């Protein structure tokens, strides 16, 4: 079976009728099937426009115009760092990248959320426990630190749908998963030449 990695691929190849929303009953089913647990409250089952647009089962025809408009809207909503500074501390960024906790019912809400980058991406070559759902980012710093590169990387972290609608990646900035400072630290982990991400394997 063909493996469709991102919804945008589906979107571009679709033509006929449109996917807007799941069948009417599904919200009621979910409300009856789940129960709030600590910080994981029931309102989390309500979807925003991105989530609704990106919930199409495989092969469902999609509305390309709507999707293009949505992507544009996401791009315009990205909030760049207030002081124009994109890079924080790569060592703190490493902690964010390795931390898989945050926002689960079982997590302590007073502790900072993790970014869990390693769940899906290879980063520092010395870390063997990396996932493969996303592309390898080892040596990411070789892309340089031009203004365009900084803004591109920030935008990917803030809201991946601004470039790649229906990507699997969480919207770390737009959804408030990571703070601005944490995002800067992750930026440094990716781009700082001194970061382990940009060192050769031992």
């Amino acid at each position, binding site marked *: *079976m063909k*493996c*469709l*990695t991102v919804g945008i691929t589906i979107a571009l190849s679709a033509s006929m009728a449109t996917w807007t929303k*799941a*069948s009417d*009953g*599904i919200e009621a*089913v*979910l409300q*009856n*099937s*789940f*129960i*709030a*647990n600590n910080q*994981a*409250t*029931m309102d*989390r*089952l*309500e*979807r925003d426009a*991105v*989530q609704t647009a*990106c*919930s*199409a*089962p*495989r092969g469902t025809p999609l509305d390309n115009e709507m999707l293009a408009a949505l992507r544009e809207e996401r791009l315009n909503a990205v909030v760049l760092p207030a002081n124009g500074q994109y890079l924080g501390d790569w060592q703190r960024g490493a902690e964010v990248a390795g931390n898989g906790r945050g*926002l*689960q*019912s*079982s997590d302590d809400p007073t502790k900072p959320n993790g970014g869990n980058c*390693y*769940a*899906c991406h290879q980063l520092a070559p010395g870390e*063997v*426990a*990396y*996932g*493969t*759902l996303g592309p390898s980012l080892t040596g990411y710093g070789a892309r340089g630190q031009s203004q365009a590169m900084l803004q591109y990387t920030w935008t990917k972290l803030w809201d991946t749908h601004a470039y790649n609608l229906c990507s*699997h990646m*969480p*919207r770390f900035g737009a*959804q*408030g*998963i990571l703070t601005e400072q944490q995002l800067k630290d992750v930026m440094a982990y990716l781009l700082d030449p001194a970061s382990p991400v940009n060192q050769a394997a031992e």
Partner: protein
Amino acid sequence: MKRHHLGFALFAAWLCSLPLAADDGVFDQYRDLMGDDNPAVFVIDEGEELWFAPQGPESATLEACDLGLGPGVTSGAYVRFPRYFADTDAVMDLESRLVHCMTTIQGRDRETVTAKPYSLRGDFGTEIEALVTWLAAESEGAAIAPEQTHAAERAMYALGEEIFFYRAGPHDFSCATCHEQSGMRIRLQALPDLTSHSGAAEAWGSWPAYRMSQGLVRTMGWRLRDCFRQQRWPELKMGSEASIALQTYMAVNAAGGMMTAPGLKR
């Protein structure tokens, strides 16, 4: 005496069901050293004893429980779930059917028997976990063949597919986020593609499973609940429509595969 060979048979089945090394074989040496002993053998025994133990106000055993193949028929029953039951006019998974039998046959209180279906930290197994483990072992080696004859069963599959792709929560996660591609892994954990037959068969066929990291056998109901915890969703209720729909989606995608549970997992 059959049980003495069960561990070995399970291990052989487990070996055959190992995923095609999305983890690049990094744990081969570890698994070699682990050998063939699955502590789930204890839980199978415990489940069998619970099935035949008189309980509740009726002081009844579960031998009159109809798992779909007739009262008391346990062999081969698990692989037909989820399925429609006329007596409840509902599609049920094994866990909810067991609760139904505990309340109707043994006269036990529904709230009580569903209060803690899955072990919490520090627990050493629950009644539901043990019964499901034994009943899965009673289908060992059988082909996965969920019923899809009743309209309600087919509707459950369609609903399950929709929920599988439903993105929600602060991380925008759906089941599909991790389980619609083959050969991928999260950290070092290989992820089954549940939209494919082979991935669904491998996954559905190996639960319930002994989780080494927890020292416990876990059921598919728990597996789904814990997936949603990590999806940052609220808590999935045992035996809920969403749970049964997702199980139907998996089981039907897995149809024709072999039941090898209880599995042995990280």
